């Protein structure tokens, strides 16, 4: 491949417009994405390594990062479980209303996060549609970390369903038949033959939902209660620091969050590389 580029960076082509298209793309990408993100890293670098560490491990920041990460982890786990069941039901069975439900799975992608936030709060507040039935049982959802998890389940669900669905659709039924022919019962076929094949997709969906949840703001702040150390998420703390004009502190928390989400994306990349090696396709 590389040899065909010759001395230039681009392989010769009869199609015009390469310079213009790539030039515009790179300029736009740099101005909108790369330079501003560079400013974030640069600003947090003004604290120095120990200063950065002090901000990120300060008790309030650490509590916020921990809350964001663990509620996201919980929500992504719930999504991995129920998202797989939903994908399975939508692909493997035919029932009335299936296509409508299938279409609705994308609602969290389309519904503005602030709208989702106030709607979920209306449902789960102590006097809300669902909250009023939970309150007598002593269960408080809105204005607690549980409420945060509910919002994060809402916004993360499509990631798992939409990653697992195509893999399940393309699953080779002959494998299931072979498994049955060889004497496996249905449960063995599902758990020993099918789930291992679905696992990379479930893990990918899980990590995508987690990455989205860690940075989520709009749907969470209405239902969270936003008490420092208890229900204050990391993105909110960034805004609080910005309002105090503590730009380096805000940038440091932002950089720490970016590192978490890039770590998760790297994990997705590893899972997909492993999947290709193991199954020979993607």
């Amino acid at each position, binding site marked *: 491949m590389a040899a065909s580029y010759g001395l230039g960076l681009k*392989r010769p*082509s009869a199609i015009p417009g390469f310079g*213009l*298209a790539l030039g515009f793309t790179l300029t736009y990408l740099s101005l909108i994405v790369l330079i501003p993100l560079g400013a974030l890293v640069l600003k947090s670098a003004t604290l120095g390594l120990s200063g950065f560490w002090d901000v990120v491990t300060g008790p309030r920041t650490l509590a916020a990062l921990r809350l964001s990460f663990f509620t996201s982890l919980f929500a992504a786990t719930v999504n991995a479980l129920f998202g797989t069941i939903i994908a399975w039901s939508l692909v493997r069975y035919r029932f009335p209303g299936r296509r409508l439900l299938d279409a609705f799975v994308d609602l969290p992608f*389309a*519904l503005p996060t602030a709208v989702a936030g106030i709607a979920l709060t209306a449902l789960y507040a102590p006097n809300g549609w669902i909250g009023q039935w939970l309150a007598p049982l002593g269960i408080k959802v809105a204005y607690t970390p549980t409420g945060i998890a509910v919002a994060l389940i809402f916004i993360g669900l499509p990631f798992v369903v939409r990653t697992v669905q195509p893999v399940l659709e393309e699953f080779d039924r002959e494998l299931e038949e072979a498994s049955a022919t060889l004497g496996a019962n249905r449960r063995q076929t599902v758990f020993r033959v099918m789930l291992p094949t679905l696992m990379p997709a479930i893990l990918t969906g899980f990590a995508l939902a987690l990455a989205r949840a860690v*940075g989520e*703001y709009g749907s969470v702040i209405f239902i969270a209660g936003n008490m420092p150390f208890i229900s204050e998420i990391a*993105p909110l703390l960034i805004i609080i620091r910005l309002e105090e004009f503590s730009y380096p502190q805000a940038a440091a928390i932002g950089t720490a969050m970016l590192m978490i989400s890039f770590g998760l994306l790297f994990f997705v990349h590893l899972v997909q590389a492993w999947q290709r090696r193991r199954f020979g396709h993607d």
Partner: protein
Amino acid sequence: MTDAAFAPLLISQPASGSAVTTERYPVRVLLVGTAVVFLVLFLLLPLAAVFVEAFRAGIGTYFAAITEPDAVSAIKLTLLVAAIAVPANIVFGLAASWAIAKFEFKGKSVLNTLIDLPFSVSPVISGLIYVLLFGAQGYFGHYLQSYNIQIIFALPGIVLATIFVTFPFVARELVPLMQEQGTQDEEAALSLGASGWKTFFKVTLPNIRWALLYGVVLCNARAMGEFGAVSVVSGHIRGKTNTMPLHVEILYNEYNFAAAFAVASLLALLALVTLVIKISLEWRYADQIAASRRH
């Protein structure tokens, strides 16, 4: 009719399956039941709540809430921001996919990864980065102040943050499709004497029109609904720098719930329209939207 006889009608499996490739009926009911309950509880109920709460105080209050001056200016600002951000990202998406899909060059996979970068950045950080650059204490803040140019807490900042969060939408729909389509059509047009631009408008654009529309619809929904990023750069000035989602927040925080849900219902309506267009494109032009299942 017994339950068992009726059962296969209610929850059956696709025609391609056989008896050994499905679960027993109670298991099917359990799985489908779980899926339906979960989707109703977590997706449909919140959506229903928006509309019920919006009309709770009566239809008069509803229309008063969406026609009062601050709401109207929020609606106008949201439309204006989308009208700038979406075309900007269309031009970018077309340029990026032309470069990536029609040519082989070094660093292509890196470029492809960088385009998706904004999707993995928290909305709040998407706003923060522009404050760090253009805010009063930002890198260019002093310079901008001396020329009396306001970016943060003004329209340019809101537009920039919106462009950032919707950056990948168009490109990520077009790149895989155009890679699949290859360069033969364009080469044929060029060899018949068409100019580069003519080839693009008469050959390439018709080939990708449905995928482009698909990307634009999703891009627009996010542009109009973005909250976190815009919240950081907007300054929440009523009637001036408030977009619809921010207006919803302000009304809600003032305990003006009926008005908050009334404005929110407009955004929910936008989401529903987006879903309907998205789904009908997926059903009708599945083969012409390469990335229809990648979300």
